[in-house]
């Protein structure tokens, strides 16, 4: 037999870590042992202490092939096995399909991940050439300084990661923030997935509510869970399976008995507001019974109508929590909200009719949703409802009011700060935001526009790929390509000159309209392929790092291997450039500028963490990420369950926060939450979007999926994941497909006046007629190629879901499709 899973020996090194992928942050154990020294099948012979001469039971421990890898380090080759941790409260020993492949995603010079960036490079129009760190930093630092001196700080633009998990973490985020906000002091900044540096949920923060309010336990205790614009089976998997499903199936009744002793309860219900019938809907129905799941398949852009209509029913029937409103909210905002948003002057019938027409949801279903959310229990005790929302709402039309509408619903029903309640993002990536204040204003500057206008002369991109994934990505791609070419030519002509002359040539090129692009990442991307300096970053497993998950659980992600070649952590890259700029400005005898780049001399990962910790005071003013009083030693001692932020020191004792706003005041000057007006802005769609909608037949909904994490930066290299979606797939309704002569597996073109993408058709019962769905960030065809540059003018957040296009059949693709199953991805038996 060739199939054999290697077992760690008794003396294998053991590390504790958290998955690098989604927001849920499942706990994992990492076993490391030298090649050729495997454990054996006897309980005495392996680190698990299990008898592998026998079949392991269901929910047991084993090492599937994706959970194992052989890495090469400077002192030899090692086995790595990465297994879900049974002791982790988040996942109780379960892996998602993404976490199951953590070991497979590790760098291997002789394996599928061998294309990792491993050395700095300088690229000219004659090609890329390896450089050492000193050369790359010297050139990049001098160009940045020259640009600041000529055009000012705002001519230095950046688009950087700001997240937790792989490629992020508090340490790297802090260093990035210090460099750009204290050092450069540019306002030309933007976050990895959007054209500006802005919150995706301004309305929640205006209301005084943090993005992540609840504990995962609350999903086991809630009477009703509301999911808006999210698909947690696929993209927040173990939160859904290990917590929500336990509630829906009745498995968490014993927890309810413990926590909710004075009220009646039942197995949980779920309301899912999503235009698609996803696997989340199917599995929730399988667990709870069809009658306990309410799926509202709304029309695009109508979230606000639907959520406000539900609120209006609650208001009309006096199911709102007047005690909570009076005690915990600024009452005058409640009064204004009734007028502006609940349209208290308009008849209920009129309001609901209009909402029903706009959203496509029948009025009885709107009323049913209101009942499930807020109709008091028989004992008159309020229902406990947990609200969750994500990109369907955030990237919907229109961002600010969309978020306001769900926050207002939670406030009017008193569903914050109690077990079984909350109003939180479901989240995509993990969180780890800690940076000096950014002062980017509101609405934040649109960097994509600044790039196209030519205002930005140096553009530094890290951990993201705007050439493919921003709005109207083709335009950004062309801008970077054409403006970059001018600099590439100057670099080629000056390559063998002293660096000062090289920089002078680059500045001349910038004056001719050029742009100098710095690309920092772990793999080559379409963006680093255009970069003049490429900086290789270390990632998860190669550095010690910290992050929080969707319930603010802070843990230490231990380093267990070396990064590839000369790659170093992002914080070390920022520190190198800061020191270079400090030196350059010191040489210029410009102490004011030199001092902006002082104190980047951290010695290790923990030193950055501790430096960042000074942002927090340990009192109620700290944001949800606050980790006052925490260091690596404490986290190591706390193990895989860590501590939930924000932390406080109470009588010298470190104390976490299970759920926000129990005793903690809301984040407003008064300490009381505010209702935020969320009137429907519906005069129709924004003009250019309306034009696109009128000109094209299909709404192209888009999002993430179970198997492919973000832009597939790891997964496109790993056969198991890549063969599920080797090119973008397009879910299309069978009747629409029939009309167009399209079969599952056919190659199709999705096109509009912005651009076109080739995809593989997937006839699916998940989408309604006239709707399609494709992945947001598939590297061989992302939605960015089809989307207009429209943003919410109040927040600069794009309406990424607002894409309309036509679809045409290109032909069959037997080679690509032969290994793909086209059976339903939303059938749970």
């Amino acid at each position, binding site marked *: 037999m060739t*199939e054999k899973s290697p077992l760690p020996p008794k003396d294998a090194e053991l590390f504790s870590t958290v998955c690098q992928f989604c927001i849920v942050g499942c706990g994992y154990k990492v076993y490391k042992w030298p090649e050729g020294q495997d454990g054996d099948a006897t309980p005495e012979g392996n680190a698990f202490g299990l008898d592998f001469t026998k079949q392991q039971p269901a929910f047991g421990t084993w090492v599937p092939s994706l959970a194992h890898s052989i890495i090469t380090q400077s002192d030899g080759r090692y086995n790595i096995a990465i297994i879900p941790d049974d002791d982790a409260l988040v996942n109780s020993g379960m892996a998602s399909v993404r976490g199951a492949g953590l070991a497979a995603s590790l760098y291997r010079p002789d394996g599928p991940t061998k294309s990792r960036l491993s050395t700095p490079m300088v690229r000219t129009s004659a090609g890329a050439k390896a450089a050492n760190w000193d050369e790359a930093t010297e050139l990049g630092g001098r160009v940045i300084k020259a640009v600041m001196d000529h055009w000012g700080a705002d001519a230095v633009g950046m688009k950087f990661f700001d997240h937790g998990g792989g490629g992020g973490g508090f340490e790297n985020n802090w260093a990035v923030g210090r460099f750009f906000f204290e050092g450069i002091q540019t306002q030309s900044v933007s976050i990895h997935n959007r054209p500006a540096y802005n919150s995706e949920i301004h309305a929640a923060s205006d209301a005084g509510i943090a993005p992540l309010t609840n504990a995962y336990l609350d999903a086991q205790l809630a009477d009703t869970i509301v999911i808006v614009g999210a698909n947690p089976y696929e993209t927040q998997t173990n939160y859904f399976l290990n917590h929500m499903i336990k509630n829906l199936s009745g498995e968490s009744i014993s927890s309810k*008995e413990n926590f909710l002793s004075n009220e009646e309860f039942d*197995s949980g219900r779920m309301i899912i507001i999503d235009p698609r019938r996803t696997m989340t809907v199917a599995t929730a129905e399988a667990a709870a019974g069809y009658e306990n799941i309410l799926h509202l398949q709304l029309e695009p852009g109508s979230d606000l109508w639907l959520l406000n209509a539900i609120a209006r029913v609650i208001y009309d029937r006096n199911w709102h929590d007047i005690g909570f409103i009076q005690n915990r909210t600024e009452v005058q905002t409640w009064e204004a909200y009734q007028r502006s948003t609940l349209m208290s002057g308009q008849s209920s019938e009129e309001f609901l009719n209009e909402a029903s027409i706009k959203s496509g949801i029948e009025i009885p279903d709107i009323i049913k949703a209101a009942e499930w959310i807020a109709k008091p229990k028989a004992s008159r005790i309020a229902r406990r409802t947990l609200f969750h929302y994500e990109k369907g709402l955030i990237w919907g039309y229109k961002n600010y009011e969309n978020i306001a509408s769900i926050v207002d619903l939670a406030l009017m029903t008193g569903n914050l700060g109690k077990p079984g309640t909350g109003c939180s993002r479901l989240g995509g990536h993990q969180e780890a935001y800690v940076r000096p204040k950014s002062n980017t204003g509101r609405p934040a500057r649109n960097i994509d526009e600044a790039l196209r206008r030519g205002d930005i002369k140096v553009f530094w991109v890290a951990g993201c790929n705007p050439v493919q994934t921003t709005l109207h990505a083709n335009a950004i791609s062309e801008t970077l390509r054409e403006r970059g070419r001018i600099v590439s030519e100057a670099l080629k002509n000056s390559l063998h000159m002293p660096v000062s002359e090289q920089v002078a040539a680059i500045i001349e090129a910038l004056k001719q309209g050029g742009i100098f692009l710095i690309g920092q990442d772990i793999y080559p991307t379409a963006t680093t392929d255009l970069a003049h300096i490429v900086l290789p970053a270390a990632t998860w497993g190669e550095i010690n790092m910290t992050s929080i998950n969707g319930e603010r659980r802070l843990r230490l992600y231990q380093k267990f291997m070396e990064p590839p070649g000369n790659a170093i952590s992002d914080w070390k890259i920022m520190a190198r450039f800061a020191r270079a700029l400090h030196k350059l400005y010191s040489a210029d005898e410009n102490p004011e500028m030199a001092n902006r780049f002082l104190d980047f001399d951290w010695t290790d990962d923990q030193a950055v963490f501790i430096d960042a910790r000074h942002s927090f005071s340990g009192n109620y003013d700290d944001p949800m990420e606050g980790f006052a009083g925490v260091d690596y030693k404490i986290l190591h001692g706390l193990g895989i369950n860590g501590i939930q932020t924000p932390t406080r020191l109470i009588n010298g004792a470190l104390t976490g926060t299970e759920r926000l706003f129990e005793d903690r005041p809301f984040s407003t000057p008064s300490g009381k939450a505010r209702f935020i007006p969320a009137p429907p802005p519906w005069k129709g769609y924004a003009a250019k979007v309306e034009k696109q909608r009128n000109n094209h037949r299909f709404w192209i909904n888009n999002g993430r999926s179970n198997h492919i994490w973000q832009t597939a930066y790891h997964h496109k290299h790993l056969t198991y994941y890549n063969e599920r979606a080797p090119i973008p797939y397009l879910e299309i309704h069978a009747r629409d497909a029939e009309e167009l002569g399209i079969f599952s597996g056919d190659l199709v073109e999705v096109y509009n006046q912005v651009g076109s993408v080739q995809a593989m058709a997937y006839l699916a019962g998940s989408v309604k007629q006239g709707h399609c769905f494709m992945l947001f960030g598939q590297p061989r065809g992302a939605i960015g190629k089809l989307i207009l540059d429209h943003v919410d003018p109040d927040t600069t957040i794009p309406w990424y879901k607002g894409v309309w296009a036509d679809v045409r059949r290109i032909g069959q693709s037997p080679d690509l499709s032969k290994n793909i199953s086209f059976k339903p991805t939303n059938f749970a038996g």
Partner: protein
Amino acid sequence: MKNIKPRDRPNRRQILTMGAVSGIAVSLGSEAESSALSQSATMPKIEIARLEDLALGTEINFYFPDEDSPAVLLVLDEQVQDGIGPGQNIVAFSSLCTHKGCQVNYYEEHKMLICPCHWSSFDPAKKGRIIIGQASSGLPQITLAIENGSVHATGISGLIYGRQTNVI
């Protein structure tokens, strides 16, 4: 307070206690063959069914390569990759889900194998590949051979859930 029974879905505790193999239809070879299997250190060969008995839509549960390893043979309605028989439509797979080891069920409606624990689904027409779910490999496929008018299991491609090697 009302105390509601959990809805009808296997939970972790139930699965741990019910064991991996109880309650499925079994079609093993002879007694002698089956007991020999569990002691064998090499891949055994067992007869599953007579070819003439395998009508379209047939589903046969059996064990392979030993009594702790449930498997399922299916006769599909199309020619498929690695299918055998005159219609190249006979396939067999390990029934242990490669996620956490629950036993998959066959759903004739869509011809899918689905795990009841976290709903990983597998396509028997595509070599047991994942359709959707949390399993990190497809279902191990049982190699089949036809000898003397009977379908035999002769090997396995892929590692069975919960094992270091397929033959233990």
